[in-house]
């Protein structure tokens, strides 16, 4: 927030609480004020939300997703200069279908000891996510879109997903479209992640792969993420946990949230501001002088942020 104020980024912040409340009819939902605010502004920035285990209500993240129909989860994974991992020059984007697939939540116990989970793939959702993936690729000058699937085993469901991807690819002849099995992607990803560009896939594979890619660049503490929904709604968030053990102690690493905010700025078209903040952030990490504990340094969260702000100012 501080960095933004310094830059005089033209955003008006509206903070909203999203603790679950029970609406009329007994359905769990997010507070109406939150919903109204989002509907008006269309763009949101979110920190981690905790889902208590026996809360009795579904995960908050899930509720948000359902309320705003956030169908695409976008996670750009770019190697951070200055934060060394065994993998260098990673520059890929995972686009994951976020509403259906294996996470439809439909499960039954058929007989005692036999459980069936249903994975749902629909034509519309597949079409939508494929469309989004290609649009994203085009808008961000990416050259290849790879559909990740397991159609050799799940012939109908992943087959449908794949067919829709192929159909959409027809309209985007400027972008290369390839298909690859999930296991091959995993195999190649840990050996040579530079060979991947944009990856589009159904829910479960997306979950696994996006976390895999986050691991390649340094983990969830430095990975931004955006959720795009219907009607132009977009919520950007950091995907790490709530880390209650360090909450309030000025120890957290704000990089993930900051980079998500940068994604948000880009989404809104404020490219200059985005670039400045991003550069400042990367430079700070690279300089190694002021780093938070999880990146190997000793600085406090506020010191880290101050350093970034300082660099932002210097750039002006």
């Amino acid at each position: 927030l501080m960095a933004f104020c310094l830059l005089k980024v033209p955003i008006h912040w509206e903070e909203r609480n999203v603790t679950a409340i029970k609406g009329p009819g007994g359905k769990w939902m997010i507070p109406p004020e939150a919903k109204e605010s989002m509907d008006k502004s269309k763009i949101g920035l979110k920190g981690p939300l905790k889902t208590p285990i026996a809360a009795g209500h579904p995960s908050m993240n899930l509720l948000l997703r359902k309320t705003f129909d956030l169908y695409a989860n976008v996670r750009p994974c770019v190697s951070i200069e200055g934060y060394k991992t065994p993998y260098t020059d990673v520059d890929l984007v995972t686009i994951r279908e976020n509403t259906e697939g294996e996470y439809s939540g439909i499960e039954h116990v058929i007989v005692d000891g036999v459980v069936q989970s249903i994975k749902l793939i629909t034509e519309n959702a597949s079409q939508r996510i494929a469309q989004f993936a290609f649009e994203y690729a085009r808008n961000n000058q990416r050259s290849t879109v790879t559909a990740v699937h397991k159609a050799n085993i799940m012939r109908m469901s992943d087959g449908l997903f794949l067919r829709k991807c192929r159909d959409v690819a027809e309209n985007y002849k400027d972008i290369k479209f390839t298909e690859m099995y999930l296991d091959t992607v995993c195999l190649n990803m840990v050996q040579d992640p530079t060979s991947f560009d944009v990856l589009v896939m159904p829910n479960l594979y997306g979950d696994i792969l996006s976390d895999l890619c986050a691991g390649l660049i340094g983990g969830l503490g430095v990975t931004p993420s955006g959720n795009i929904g219907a009607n132009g709604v977009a919520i950007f968030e950091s995907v790490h946990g709530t880390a209650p053990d360090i909450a309030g102690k000025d120890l957290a690493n704000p990089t993930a949230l900051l980079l998500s905010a940068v994604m948000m700025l880009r989404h809104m078209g404020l490219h200059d501001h985005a670039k400045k903040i991003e550069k400042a952030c990367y430079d700070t990490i690279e300089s190694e002088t002021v780093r938070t504990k999880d990146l190997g340094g000793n600085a406090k969260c506020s010191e880290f942020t101050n350093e970034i702000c300082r660099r932002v100012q210097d750039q002006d």
Partner: protein
Amino acid sequence: MQKLIRPLFLQNRIGSPAQVFGVAGSSRRGKACDCPPPAKYGGRHTVTMIPGDGIGPELLRHVQEVFRYSCVPVDFEVVHVNSAMTEEDDINNAITAIRRNRVALKGNIETNHTMPPSHKSRNNLLRTSLDLYANVIHCQSLPGVQTRHRDIDIMIIRENTEGEYSSLEHESVPGVVESLKIITKSNSLRIADYAFRLAREKGRKRVTGVHKANIMKLGDGLFLQCCKEVASGYPDIVFDSMIVDNTTMQLVSKPQQFDVMVMPNLYGNVVSNVCAGLVGGPGLVPGANLGRDYAVFETATRNTGKSIANKNTANPTAMLLASCMMLDHLQLHEVMHTADIGGQGTTSEVVQSIMRLMQGASLRSAAAF
């Protein structure tokens, strides 16, 4: 006079060929199979060989060469499976042959996923018909192979018959497809039991269950529950669990923390491929599909490798190691590098080098006698 065969990766001994290979297969399979070893005719074993597609045929030819060279008393009954055929006669023949011989070595059979769903994956059909419920993969860092991470030694035990691979799909309304993932208590208990038995036998300390029970509460929840149940019977082994996405993240940052991992089918697919990639690629890791009565050995990552077929560039290590798992002897000390791990050797050169090593080793041990 028969020597007792020690498990493959723990021994650095090569006896003289005739003695060592005489009791092939029996002790290793004692864990998964509670059945007597397959019949030996005239002191020689018969093993079903399914060449498969892509690089399968050439790799298996090399295995045959190496076996011939080292006078291994194993005869291969080769059964071809034509992946283009829509009838299931071919694969049924193969299954019958495996039932007859109890042991098989196979290449991957290609699945054309543009064909209709009635045309099932041949590999999957084989696994489910023979009830090869455990897929065991041992990924360890090999000396001499350059990788980003060192000192990896992970055993992956993957449920091999159910889960997402049940091939039960239907289109309830046009445009909406449902795919069923089945988890059963009996299979989960079975695989967990196998995992813990194997861990104990190999002296491993920790078994990690990989799941996604926060989302698939009933399905993976059942799996996890079964693992915990079995774990209570093995107090000397630590059992913990990890969500699959976190697992992959940990694997690429700190793979040394893992010991033995057990998981349902699909996560097994992902994790085994990630681990294989970590130790150097699909050309290096062998895999075993084990059931109560049968055992089928193949490469861990089950690739057809169409793009490098017949170019003499494939790395035969995985297939050779698989055949070694099958025979339960032979220790590879060093492998001349093929292109996929950064060298310029060709497939046949690697085989020659292995044969030279074996010759050297058997000469040494012959001299010792």
